[in-house]
């Protein structure tokens, strides 16, 4: 057995308790270990990607119990790609956090970050539905800690909402798993797929209920329209570098939808035929529309970026909900783009917020305005899907897949939603950008606004910094290195569109080839 597969879960699971128990009072050591762990994870992810790109599906049986009796980890092209994407994003985030000194504003940032990575990477690698639930809980409980990092009244209130919403989601997840178990008697994804395909066509009511409940859970994670309410308040009030890391969490929902509704409840399975795509496609289009309108109406920079993240989830889910190999390939390309872009825009939002507060109102020129403005400009191009960056290529691929999916007149509706929302996004981002960077500054007018706009620090309840943790000097250069790193990632994604698309196409073929997956995981012909 190839033990590299379990390394992305074991490494952060060892480093995080080590950080808490041994070096909790030494911020410098925590930073060194955290960065070293993430660099090592990146190397492991590259190794795994190289192994997976041969097209072979590898199975890691925990405790050497064969599936479906034990829990298995499955490494295929899709999970290897998602693992590398996560580690790259987290490298940028951890560098930014160290550069901006965010990790010194509260305790245990690095330990929580490692636990979060453990949960996300585990969710991408697992081949067992209940294990997926457990990794969801690991990543959620770490995200609760990160969400309220460094405290503050508004952030805590938003944190309570976020936790309540996700606890409800977890309860729903358990109901869905229970229903599926009651019908099929298994929770291993491959075994589930085999049993679902064998189910008699006239006895599927309970299974369909389970499948839809599961879709609701993943839709909460992915912030699909009627279930997106948690996202703007949570992301805008979380520390913005943490929101950049959370960019991967919505993708966990999208990944789970892609995984479950192609391999388990695939479009060719009679029991659940037409169940998901018919609902998901309109919801995804509305998500895109609401995201674009939200960008247009946002009064605060965190909220602007949160709606940007919702809009990109909308486009991504349109591509997924086509449930064709071509759509899945486009979705995966867009997923890489969308994760890097969402990370980048939240880092830029934090750069701006640290210098002039979060409100989108005229303000005296901030330091390094030229550099930040040009970063914002490039990120806005990527977010809106304008040429020359990868957002354009991604949207083109999604539209192309929608045309070839054989939907008839619906194609035009999808095209209209994507194109019009791109326009609205451009207008909204241009409006915000011109107020933030160009609007002339009138001291008398602005002083009034500033008094409400700047974040107020409540002296009475402010959390005092730990005297043992002497706050080190921020290193702004490192923050810019992180932001430019993500930008370089986007440029590379654009330049290397051809090879990346070849990889995602092969990935899509692999996840639609259910027989090979079952054969490898269950070791039966």
């Amino acid at each position, binding site marked *: 057995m190839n033990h590299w597969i379990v390394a992305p879960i074991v490494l952060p699971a060892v480093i995080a308790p080590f950080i808490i128990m041994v070096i909790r009072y030494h911020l410098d050591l925590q930073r060194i270990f955290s960065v070293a762990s993430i660099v090592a994870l990146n190397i492991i992810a590259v190794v795994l990607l190289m192994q997976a790109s041969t097209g072979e599906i590898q199975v890691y049986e925990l405790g050497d119990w064969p599936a479906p009796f034990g829990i298995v980890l499955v490494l295929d092209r899709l999970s290897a790609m998602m693992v590398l994407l996560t580690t790259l994003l987290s490298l940028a985030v951890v560098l930014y956090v160290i550069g901006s000194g965010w990790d010194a504003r509260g305790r245990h940032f690095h330990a929580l970050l490692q636990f979060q990575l453990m949960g996300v990477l585990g969710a991408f690698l697992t081949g067992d539905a209940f294990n997926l639930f457990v990794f969801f809980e690991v990543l959620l409980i770490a995200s609760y800690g990160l969400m309220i990092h460094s405290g503050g009244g*508004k952030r*805590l209130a938003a944190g309570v909402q976020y936790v309540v919403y996700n606890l*409800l989601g977890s309860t729903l997840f358990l109901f869905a798993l229970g229903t599926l178990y009651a019908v099929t008697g298994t929770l291993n994804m491959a075994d589930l797929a085999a049993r679902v395909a064998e189910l008699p066509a006239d006895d599927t009511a309970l299974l369909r209920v389970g499948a839809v409940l599961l879709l609701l859970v993943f839709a909460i994670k992915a912030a699909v329209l009627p279930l997106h309410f948690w996202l703007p308040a949570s992301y805008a009030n979380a520390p913005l570098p943490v929101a950049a890391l959370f960019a991967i969490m919505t993708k966990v929902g999208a990944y789970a939808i892609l995984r479950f509704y192609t391999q388990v409840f695939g479009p060719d399975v009679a029991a659940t035929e037409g169940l998901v795509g018919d609902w998901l496609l309109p919801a995804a289009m509305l998500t895109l529309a609401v995201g674009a309108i939200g960008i247009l109406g946002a009064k605060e920079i965190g909220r602007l970026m949160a709606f940007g993240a919702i809009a990109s989830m909308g486009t991504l889910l349109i591509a997924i909900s086509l449930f064709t190999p071509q759509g899945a390939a486009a979705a995966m390309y867009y997923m890489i783009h969308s994760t890097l872009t969402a990370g980048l825009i939240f880092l830029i939002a934090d750069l701006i917020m640290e210098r002039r507060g979060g409100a989108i109102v005229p303000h005296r020129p901030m330091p390094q305005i030229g550099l930040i403005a040009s970063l914002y400009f490039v990120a806005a191009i990527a977010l809106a899907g304008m040429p020359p960056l990868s957002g354009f290529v991604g949207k083109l691929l999604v539209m192309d897949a929608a045309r070839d999916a054989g939907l008839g007149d619906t194609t035009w509706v999808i095209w209209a939603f994507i194109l019009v929302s791109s326009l609205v996004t451009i207008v909204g981002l241009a409006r915000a950008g011109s107020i933030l960077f160009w609007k002339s500054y009138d001291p008398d007018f602005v002083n009034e606004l500033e008094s409400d706009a700047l974040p107020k620090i409540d002296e009475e309840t402010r959390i005092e910094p730990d005297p043992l943790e002497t706050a080190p000097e921020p290193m702004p250069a490192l923050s810019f290195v992180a932001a430019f790193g993500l930008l370089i990632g986007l440029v590379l994604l654009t330049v290397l569109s051809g090879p990346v698309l070849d990889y995602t196409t092969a990935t899509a073929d692999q996840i639609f080839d259910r027989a090979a997956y079952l054969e490898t995981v269950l070791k039966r012909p």
Partner: protein
Amino acid sequence: MEILVATAVGVLTASGIYLVLRQRTFPVIVGISLLSYAVNVFLFATGRLVINAPPILNKYEDVPYTDPLPQALVLTAIVISFGMTAVIVMIALSSYLTNRDDRIDMIDDAGEDA
């Protein structure tokens, strides 16, 4: 037996959802606890209800047994929901102590979509 369990799950879920929709933190937390009890009983029932049978397969004689897997799942779910409840109590408490207000909605400062 089935009626009893089904009613229990239904009543717990209904009361849980009612409480979660309240505006103060405390009823919401109680509601989430009720929902997690409901889901635990529900998970337990997914292995079919069998009375007075051990969760052990006997290979020497054909005796009734109950499905052990849901019991393991319920154990995991109980531990997780217990931990999560502790976390949300702490976060809600610090939010209340900071804001001097235990409303769950953020009407004042977060706008219409909070």
